[in-house]
């Protein structure tokens, strides 16, 4: 059912964990639906220096989470924002059609983490100006 690449990421997921002093945290999905992804980022000079994830969900949910962290680690915020759910699925050699909607949310979680980072940064900048 799953591609070799999906199974490889599922078996050896990259960047699992949390970042205690993360600059941004994004969470998407809902345990009621069977998928919840949480992504933590550490940003320095507009570059994603470190990224970690925690995911509750099926094989596709775990593999896409792992893949998205690998795709954007070391990339700038703008580059990371261009990564779509579809691109993540493609990088994994495709996902079964039924999984494209419910479990392919990793890029959304990443984008949510970036938005969180931007919000926090804005607040910090404002505070520093005062």
């Amino acid at each position, binding site marked *: 059912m*799953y591609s070799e690449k999906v*199974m490889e990421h*599922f*078996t050896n*997921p990259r960047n*699992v964990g*949390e970042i205690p002093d993360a600059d941004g945290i994004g*969470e998407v999905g809902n*345990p*009621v*639906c*069977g*998928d*919840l*992804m*949480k992504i933590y980022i550490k940003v320095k000079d507009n570059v994603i220096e470190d990224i970690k994830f*925690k*995911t*509750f*969900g*099926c*094989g596709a*949910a*775990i593999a896409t989470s792992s893949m998205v962290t690998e795709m954007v680690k070391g990339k700038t915020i703008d580059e990371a924002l261009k990564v779509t759910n579809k691109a993540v699925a493609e990088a994994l050699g495709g996902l079964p059609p*039924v*999984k494209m909607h*419910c*479990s392919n949310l990793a890029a959304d979680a990443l984008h949510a983490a970036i938005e969180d980072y931007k919000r926090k940064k804005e607040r910090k900048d404002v505070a520093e100006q005062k």
Partner: protein
Amino acid sequence: MKRVYMDHAGTTPVRREVLEAMLPYFTERFGNASTIYSYGREAKSAIEEAREKVAHLIGADPREVFFTAGGTESDNWAIRGIAHANKEKGKHIITSSIEHHAVLHTCEDLEKEGFKVTYLPVDKYGLVKVEDVINAITDETILVTIMHANNEIGTIEPIAEIGKALKKLDRKIYFHTDAVQTVGKIPVNVDELGVDLLSISAHKIYGPKGVGALYIRKGTKIKPFMTGGAQENKRRAGTENVPGIVGFGKAAELAEKELMEQYEKLSYLRDKLIKGIMERIPHVILNGHPTQRLPHNVNVCFKYIEGESLLLNLDMKGICASSGSACTSGSLEPSHVLLAIGLPHEIAHGSLRLTLGRDNTEEDVDYVLEVLPGIVEKLRSMSPLFPSKGGN
């Protein structure tokens, strides 16, 4: 790699003895049972011999056993056949909310034709209450269909008690039970259960796929499922699946002979597996009734993880099992059975069903108990729902 098959409620391998009994009926004894020459007579007598074996297993008269293409057809036939033949008496059917989809979707289909269906709730163990069945009866009720044991959580329903209560009523309401999971696992007797119709499947008892039977009590008013030739006493048309039926008969004969021995072996392994899981892994819920339970069924929920990732990890270790998570149920919802026993969605997604069979050994159980804790721990360490050490 070591392979451990623990999905016997899904299907079972065809036993060697069963296959050997079937083989001649593909080739040298290929006859059509409806013909009068020797080939046909051979096929006919093989079918009748199989019918006697299946009837004996459930304590029925062979004339009350009708071969079908499997459990799903038997359920469809029982429910649609009774509904359509008795609709002038009423259009109300009573069933439970934890039936197999072969029953539930058939009932839903009949609702579109104007039948009314009551889907009874179950308690936290998955038990239907006898008084709920009786209280649901209206002047319009023509059929009660409640499964003998649940395929997912293994709970055995009080069918004999419901049968007795229905007999006390002043008018006839037909009683059907889907016994696909119980026949060959626990003693099944149509008179003791008080049922008019009972569904059986061959491939759950080490027989071939694509063959089953419907027990229809003498005098039951039911429409034929298929129209065509005069096979199965004009009730189920179509040239008989002779090798399949012969295999079913052999499987039934063996199941009856080995029933008690297997019951003891399987319930011992089941209890060891349940106890072992509970002792080794925290945050586990046992689904189904603790004692009123099929001898080969283990069903548990591991909190904070999802079933499909659990199955994939088990498969990598050679263990074949099933789950009631949304991903594995082929829909967006987790198993209707787990929801009906009151589990929240997020917990139902983390279910695991292990169903034992005659080839499983104590070593298989030990192997599962050795591998499972590490897999659950690994998935929990990745789960944002799992409370972190010392925290919340």
